[in-house]
């Protein structure tokens, strides 16, 4: 079973998983008395069928790319970073501080500074669990989950007591300075004389996410540090034999991971909301785990999985609107089924498929 053809491993099995997830979702839709094929059509049309839908889909995908890459990088060192949610929240604080208090003349200057600030804040939030793991052996899964809650409480405190402008009811920061507003897809297409609807929140951060995919691929598969991270991930004892410091690997992989999660806020906080909201992450940290699992911790896989989840988010919203019988909760059920089948139940399909291919191979010989 260890030598499945690559296309089976990377394409066929995820597709079968997806198919199964959709089939069961379809049964759910049938159960509530709607036509599953029409539901499917609405999801696809709503998310990919128009520039408007695509603008939303890719906006969500951008969030998931960052949080997915974050989980993927840490996973190469066998660090299961469940704290993307909290790291993204704190990254949002880093973005907000940059965009609130400095009067930026132009977004091109604000952009790189905000990226660094967001990454720095996100990395700082992952540094404490990483240090505890590296020095004290405190399990990274437990500590990063805890840090999600701490981050949330901290953000509530800051937004209610510190960052909220006087006299405002909602617990959110003031609007960012105009010079920090990133160009949206509408603006970017406009530069080239092309049209793109104004309302979708898709912005230049999408390009940053694509770049991040490439850079993370380069980092993991082409640099010495990436080599050391992968070696450590496969075998800690062998890594020590080779002179690789576990402390260094745990810190570096978790800092890069936290930094990536933090950078998600460039898209959602700086690019879309243009103010810091109390729930700027909206579960993207957890969807990132699914995207990394489904994408096999490979940047290209993460990208594709992130787009798929973007489709589900946007298509789900459309479905809710078009088919009132399908409630918001139903959409969450469908998304959960996809995560369940592509992530947790992966072996459900892998084992029988592996057996079939063994049989086929035997016959050929």
């Amino acid at each position, binding site marked *: 079973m260890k*030598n499945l053809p690559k296309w089976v491993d990377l394409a066929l099995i995820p597709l079968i998983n997806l198919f199964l997830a959709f089939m069961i979702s379809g049964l759910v839709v049938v159960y509530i008395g709607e036509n599953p094929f029409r539901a499917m059509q609405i999801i696809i049309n709503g998310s990919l069928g128009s520039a408007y839908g695509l603008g939303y889909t890719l906006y969500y995908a951008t969030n998931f790319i960052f949080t997915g890459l974050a989980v993927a990088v840490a996973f190469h060192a066998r660090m299961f970073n469940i704290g993307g949610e909290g790291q993204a929240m704190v990254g949002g604080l880093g973005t907000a501080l940059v965009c609130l208090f400095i009067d930026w003349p132009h977004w091109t200057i604000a952009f790189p500074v905000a990226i660094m600030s967001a990454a720095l804040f996100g990395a700082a939030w992952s540094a404490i669990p990483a240090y505890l793991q590296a020095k004290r052996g405190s399990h990274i899964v437990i500590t990063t989950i805890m840090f999600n809650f701490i981050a949330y409480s901290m953000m509530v405190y800051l937004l209610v007591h510190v960052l909220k402008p006087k006299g405002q009811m909602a617990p959110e920061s003031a609007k960012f300075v105009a010079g920090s507003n990133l160009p949206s897809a509408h603006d970017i297409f406009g530069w080239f004389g092309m049209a793109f609807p104004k309302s979708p929140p898709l912005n230049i951060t999408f390009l940053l996410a694509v770049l991040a995919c490439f850079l993370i691929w380069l980092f993991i598969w082409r*640099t010495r540090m990436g080599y050391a991270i992968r070696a450590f991930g*496969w*075998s800690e004892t*062998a890594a020590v*034999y080779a002179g690789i410091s576990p402390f260094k690997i745990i810190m570096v992989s978790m800092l890069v991971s936290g930094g990536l999660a933090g950078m998600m806020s460039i898209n959602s906080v700086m690019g879309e909301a243009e103010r810091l909201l109390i729930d700027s992450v909206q579960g993207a940290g957890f969807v990132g785990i699914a995207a990394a699992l489904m994408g096999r911790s490979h940047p290209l896989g993460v990208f594709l999985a992130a787009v798929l989840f973007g489709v589900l988010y946007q298509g789900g919203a459309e479905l809710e609107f078009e088919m009132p019988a399908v409630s918001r909760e139903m959409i969450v059920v469908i998304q959960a089924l996809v995560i369940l089948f592509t992530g947790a139940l992966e072996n459900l399909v892998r084992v029988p498929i592996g057996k079939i291919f063994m049989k086929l191979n*035997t016959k050929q010989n």
Partner: protein
Amino acid sequence: MDTKVQHDSAAPMIELRGISKSFGPVQANKNINLKVNKGSIHGIVGENGAGKSTLMSILYGFYKSDSGEIYINGKHINITDSHVAIEAGIGMVHQHFKLVENFTVLENVILGTENSFLINPALNNARVLLSDLASTYSLEVNPDALIEDLSVGHQQRVEILKALYRQADILILDEPTGVLTPAEADHLFNILRNLSKEGKTIILITHKLKEIMSVTDTVSVMRRGEMTATLETSKTNPQELAELMVGRSVLLRVEKDTTEVGDKSLEVHDLSVTDKRGVTALKNVSFHVRKGEILGIAGVAGNGQTELLEALGGISPATGTMKIDGEEIPLLGKGSDARSKREYGVSHVPEDRQKLGLILDFFAWENIAFGYHHKDEFNRNWLLMDNGKTREIAREEMAKFDIRPPTPNNLVKNFSGGNQQKIVLARELEQHPKVLIVGQPTRGVDIGAIEFIHQKIIDLRNKGVAILLVSVELDEIFSLSDRVAVLFDGKIIGERITEETNESELGLLMAGIEDGSGEQPVMESVA
């Protein structure tokens, strides 16, 4: 293929007819025929991957054969799973024990055969039976001891008792001596002889020809899935068996010239290691190795060998001093890690290639750079590694060390044990070390590869490299080293020049019986 071994007309205890089994394209067993008489000890030898374990797994019901029939005591039995095998009286002692560490011996023995809601009846029943078995077969074990407190030899006895408790008449032992000291192995063989006297039939799978010669009545040789011969042990010899296993003539002992030894290259003084539990594993160990010399460290496993290798290789901290060509290098704190050791010219072939020496899920070419990945030859610039060049280097080294298949783009876990070891050896030797530290270089490696590996180590010595060889195989110590030091209980208990000593003298030292003089070993014996 069938032999003249069958004298009597009674049905054999075990008969295999035309067993074949393939895994995908690999045919693990090809038309195997075998007869084993009741009350005999039958050895099966063969190199790694020859199909021994597959055959036994078919007999024990782990795998289903593609074709062929199994007869037990003349009766055709369709062994569909292990329960059927146990019912038929087959017991198996696995290479890696399947015991619950924090259960007592008794609890382990009855596991799965409790037969009632309360376990006390079964426990009492087993206690009586166990004391019977213990006296009949000299299989003494304290029934109330926890498994984790028992020595490996005793744990193995528990495995045998488990099989006997289930009324096994046929006992299959898979590489049973791999983890035992020579004394424990001798005791095991006595047990096996007793068992066979009482009419039990025993199948012994091993790659150690010495064991075959000393304990079995008949022996079968397997090569590439086929049973190439079945012989009476008394009518064969190790050389013949080795040739049948490999399919060509082999040198059981590599030729070695005497060479001029040079200056002291590796010097170790007062090396002490305390492990994580606070147990002192090494106490004030001192020795030196000269250029062009192999110092063998002999001893029963678990007397500080692992700690010695890990301290010198930079894996775990130690106190004392270590010098390379007169330059002191740290054993503790900053600059004592494995990377620094390599920068001083110390290469390390570890005891456990799968846990330490290799990343099994990396490609062969990635493993060729492992530990040396900071060196210029594997890098394009300050940031990026040079994968293309690393592949090229790997291709050259793999050809040079006859690693099969010679494809760098192959995951290391898909290579056989011998070829994995050659990958480690190729990597460490091709870095032209000043000092080579090597632990158990041929553990789990087949005969053909042993010859090759020994030759490479001797070539390196002839080039003037100082080599520290740690091995629990006395044969290996004798055929490679120029001097031998014996580790016992974390101390060097004696030191000899290889040509002026013999196995029985070293055997005494290994058992902890010190020199008559009672003084510290003489260090300058080869000056």
